[in-house]
């Protein structure tokens, strides 16, 4: 079979996480207004500073325009058609996993995330976000003993208002950009982590996001603060059921690494990408940013295989001297997926260092854009950046684009950038096939090899999942 035929063949792959869970939901009417925001805030029992902040954001949002600079195309979103709040109906607070709605637990099972299993085997504490409200937080006790706060955002607002008030918006202000501002106004829930001074979080903290309800925008907000010399590794996995309408997802993640702290943030994003004709799928418009103080380190690792449109630039503001920023990314677009993703490394402090490794894989009619900024500010004496952006094209109808921006304001800073574009060669495929490996496996193997530099940055249990995901997302596209 020719490459082209196989390519066509492989594009028929179905989304494996496409199912809808029937759970009673607590929804508010669609649309956006000050009234809706008050309702959201009230439902969540928020203190007044939170409501004020939301309203400021909303009023600012009204003055903003949706950005158009990204290399993605989609029909205009009607923000009045979106439902901004939806929560599984609960009669009382839940004490343990066993009390969680069996339907919901079954849903997690289908996702391949047996919650209990994971808790036992992997020692992962999971804060599962089902649609917008946190329903199960585990391992809280053990973490609490160390003084670590790991809870849903709503709970943090109630239980740790001082921490939230201090850090919320400190990295991504409510005025930041169209989607982040919208999130600031309407965010429903998310995760909150605080690791106190000198504490090393003993386990990977993990949250699975899932978008379930029809027409529900998901607006989570994550805030992670690592106090001086603290360490935390956070995993985020995302899936969404199959829906025909595009669903809006506008999340905000803020990381704060104080002096000497380290935060490792890993994402495997597998939201519904739409069907082969580009119908349906998630719009993933995400703002992720971290601030690094002296000697601290921020590390973003992402494997992006899902969503119809991905628009995200996990960034590092390297404010403190000797701070380090890292960005490791694999983005795969198949069928008619579009991704415009990359990072910003803003070097402010002396001797700050950053590394960017981006691997873009385009198949089918997918369009994959790396967009990144490396900025060496005036004070960034002795700063260093190394960027490598590689693209792999599978088939002749996809696109791979590389748009790095390099801005240097300090002569002692050193910036190096490399980019390559290639395809899987017939020679490589024939070599594998001659050794008995079927074409699809060969392609999956070669793609995983291409992405290895990034995959090895993922925590072990995630890496395996990510590898499978790459193969799966390519099924239907390869030759």
């Amino acid at each position, binding site marked *: 079979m020719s490459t082209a035929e196989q390519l066509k063949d492989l594009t028929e792959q179905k989304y494996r996480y496409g199912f809808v869970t029937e759970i009673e939901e607590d929804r508010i009417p669609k649309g956006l207004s000050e009234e809706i925001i008050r309702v959201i805030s009230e439902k969540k029992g928020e203190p007044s500073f939170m409501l004020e902040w939301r309203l400021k954001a909303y009023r600012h949002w009204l003055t903003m325009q949706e950005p158009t600079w990204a290399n993605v195309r989609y029909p205009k979103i009607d923000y009045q058609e979106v439902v901004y709040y939806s929560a599984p109906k609960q009669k009382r607070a839940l004490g343990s996993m066993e009390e969680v709605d069996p339907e919901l637990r079954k849903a997690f099972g289908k996702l391949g995330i047996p919650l209990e299993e994971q808790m036992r085997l992997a020692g992962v504490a999971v804060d599962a976000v089902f649609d917008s409200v946190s329903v199960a937080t585990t391992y809280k006790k053990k973490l609490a003993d160390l003084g670590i706060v790991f809870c849903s955002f709503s709970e943090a607002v109630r239980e740790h208002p001082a921490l939230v008030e201090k850090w919320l918006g400190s990295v991504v202000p409510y005025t930041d950009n169209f989607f982040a501002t919208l999130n600031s106004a309407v965010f429903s829930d998310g995760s909150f982590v605080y690791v106190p001074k000198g504490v090393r979080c003993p386990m990977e903290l993990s949250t699975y996001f899932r978008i379930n309800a029809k027409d529900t925008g998901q607006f989570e907000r994550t805030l992670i603060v690592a106090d001086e010399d603290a360490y935390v590794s956070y995993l985020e996995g995302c899936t969404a059921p199959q829906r025909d309408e595009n669903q809006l997802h506008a999340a905000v993640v803020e990381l704060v690494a104080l002096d000497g702290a380290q935060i490792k943030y890993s994402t495997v994003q597998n939201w519904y990408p739409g069907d082969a004709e580009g119908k349906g799928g998630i719009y993933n418009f995400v703002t992720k940013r971290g601030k690094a103080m002296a000697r601290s380190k921020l590390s973003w690792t992402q494997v992006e295989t899902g969503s119809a449109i991905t628009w995200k630039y996990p960034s590092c503001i390297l404010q403190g001297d000797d701070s380090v920023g890292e960005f490791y990314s694999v983005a795969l677009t198949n069928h008619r997926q579009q991704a415009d993703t990359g990072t910003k490394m803003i070097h402010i402090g002396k001797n700050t260092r950053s590394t960017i490794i981006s691997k873009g894989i385009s198949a089918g009619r997918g369009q994959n854009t790396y967009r990144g900024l490396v900025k*060496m500010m005036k004070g960034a004496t002795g700063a260093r950046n190394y960027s490598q952006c590689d693209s792999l094209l599978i088939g002749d109808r996809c696109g791979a684009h590389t748009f790095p921006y390099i801005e*240097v304001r300090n002569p002692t800073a050193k*910036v*190096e950038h490399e980019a390559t*574009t290639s395809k899987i060669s017939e020679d490589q495929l024939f070599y594998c096939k001659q050794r008995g490996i079927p074409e699809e496996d060969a392609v999956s193997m070669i793609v995983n090899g291409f992405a290895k530099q990034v995959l090895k940055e993922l925590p072990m249990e995630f890496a395996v999942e990510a590898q499978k995901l790459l193969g799966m997302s390519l099924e239907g596209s390869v030759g």
Partner: protein
Amino acid sequence: MNAAETSLVAAFAPPAREPAWLGEARRSALARFEALGLPTARHEDWRFTSLAALGALPFARAPAGDPAVASALLARGAAPEGPRLVFVNGRLAPELSTRGGLPQGVILSSLAEALREVPEKVRPHLGRLARPEAHAFTAANAALFEDGGFVLLPRGAAIDAPLALVFVTDAPPPAPLRGAEEIRGQAAAAPAAVHPRTLVVAEEGARGIVEEVFVGRGASLTNAVTELVLADGAKVEHVRLQVEGPDTFHVGAVHAEQGAEATLGAHAFSLGARLSRSELWSRLAGEGGEVRANGLYMADGARISDHFTWVEHAVPRCTTAQTFKGILDGTARGVFSGRIRVLPGAQKTVAHQLSSSLLLSDDAIADTKPQLEIFADDVKCGHGGTVGQLDEASLFYLRSRGVPEADAKSLLIWAFASEMVGLVGAPALRARAKNLIAARLPAGARILEAA
């Protein structure tokens, strides 16, 4: 409209004795310019280069230049001996030009002459590649150009001597620091605007070297547009040498189109002007075409030097090789943005892009934006870039061998820059470019002697 826009529109005065089609083109270009306005930093292609200072100036149509001044400027070594046409303030200066000795059929003439004598060779191409629709400066040039160069390399012609087009600007000195109101009140001191226009047509299999040199003094705007048409199998080297005075805004766009197996070597040396913008738009339209686009820019003081390239691979089996280098001192700003587009179906494309900048001072700025946009899978594309200062180890090595620091620095800068000169094919051009670069280095003279 700002002062510059208003004054440019006001300067519209199409020559009386011109073909009707050209007059029509000028009028529609002017309308386009009015609609577009000068680009601002909001324009993605201009995000690093502000035209605010230019926009505040009212420009007047350039007066007749002083031939003596022009001769003196030419004597500084930028302009070549050999076949050349010299234009002073946009108008042909026959007494400074040298023609003759060209092979049969090769034309080196002013555009105005060509429009009179060989209109059939001009009309199909003029304004075809440099379309006013999207670009304000190109629109202004199309509306306002007075004259420029025309080069025809007929089918199969091969000429080794560079054909030179020299554009001299003799403009009034800049107004001392005064409010814009006052400047407007004194028409005599208004900076001059010149819009040179060049068309180079290389027919099938023709081979030649075309050089454009820009020199000048005084406060001015040079807004040059060049169109290069390379038919199948043509081989053209185009060198752009910009050594304008420190009060000139220089905006130059080269638009090229190449047929099958055609090769273009496009070199841009931007050494002068207070603001220099050099654009190369190249379209590889025939299989097996090759474009080598190189640039060297040096800027000190508060100058801005901006290089912009856009290469489009429309068909299979074409090659792009780009190297751009910047040397920045003082509070100068250097910009490189280069886009390579590989359109659907342009398989077997090979395209590589390299940009490096050297920052010599604490306040110099480098902005780099290399871009690959790829819609075909069987391609080999890449780009690489570095920004940094002179290598500490090399500097120390030279000093430890007794070379004084200033000389050592000059030597290392020279080594960095001379690679770009080495890429130029014509020896006479190389020598001239070397001298001009060395003249900008503290210990340049000694280095040249040693080299």
